């Protein structure tokens, strides 16, 4: 049985992090699975799946010198791969407005109550430091139907003074 680890890694962004980390895993005969790597603010973040012969403790020991050199925090977890079972989103949601504490909590709570299973969420802080703007995009599965999600978004927009909209996703398979 394959040994899958989830590597979580974060540190101040600089060129070369992905190349050096992935090369270190390759040298340990690691085979990368799905990954999310992105810059959040001035930080670079990685969450990646790796199938690797060595145990978690041995992988951590070998990664430590590199991560110390690059000033990266990292963490490893043993996980089940569960690949080849992608869930298709059926709705895309866009929310934006003046940045305010609690908007993600309010939005995701309302969407959870409306039956939404979030598959992907990306958010950015734009605008300028004096007037920051929060922009969030969510893709998910509307377990209680699109109308329920739409109503929840209308209430969210009204109560929090944000713009909230949704677009159905009708995946075309050809």
């Amino acid at each position, binding site marked *: 049985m394959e040994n899958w680890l989830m590597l979580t890694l974060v540190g101040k962004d600089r060129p070369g992090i992905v190349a050096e980390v992935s090369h270190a895993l390759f040298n340990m005969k690691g085979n990368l699975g799905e990954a999310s790597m992105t810059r959040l603010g001035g930080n670079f973040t990685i969450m990646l799946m790796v199938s690797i012969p060595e145990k978690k403790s041995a992988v951590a020991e070998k990664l430590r010198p590199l991560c110390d050199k690059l000033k990266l925090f990292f963490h490893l977890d043993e996980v089940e791969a569960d690949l*080849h079972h992608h869930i*298709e989103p059926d709705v895309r949601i866009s929310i934006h407005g003046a940045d305010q504490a609690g908007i993600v909590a309010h939005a995701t709570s309302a969407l959870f109550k409306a039956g939404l299973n979030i598959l992907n969420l990306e958010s950015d802080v734009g605008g300028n430091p004096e007037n920051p703007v929060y922009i969030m995009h969510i893709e998910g599965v509307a377990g209680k139907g699109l109308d329920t999600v739409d109503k929840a978004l209308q209430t969210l927009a009204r109560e929090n003074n944000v713009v909230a909209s949704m677009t159905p996703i*009708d*995946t*075309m*398979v*050809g």
Partner: protein
Amino acid sequence: MTILNVLVYPDENLKKISQPVKDFSADLKKFVRDLEETFRSFPGCVGIAAPQVGRFERIVLVDISHKPQHANHGFLVLINPEIKFYEGTSLGREGCLSVPDYTGKVERAKSITLEAVNESGEKLQFCMSGYEARAVQHEMDHLDGKLFLDRLVGRRNALSRRTEVST
């Protein structure tokens, strides 16, 4: 009729360029029926192209009529199809019988004018837009050895798109 074997990426044959149909014989009609049978065996699927089953001729089938919320022309047999006019762009999510367990966002022309012939060699012309136009463009890409993977728009790019102008 026969359900044909569908090639799955990374099969190199999916990159082959298909040739125009020249022989409109009974063999072509039989193949089209088999291709339809194959396509119908995948519930929810909206089209198929001949090279997906290893026949490298310019033949595609499209039928989105099971999604009546989208305007459509019913079941289309498009032989030697050519898009004569493109207008607008739209972003939508696509998957493919030849690329299991993956879907992604792809930009396509919103509206197209299409010319083709049917199994008897009779000329056809369609103006279509939206979902049906997307399906036709997806299937016609197979004829040129392209998959939707060749046209993916990245996750973040798809969400906050900017026009890049080269100077």
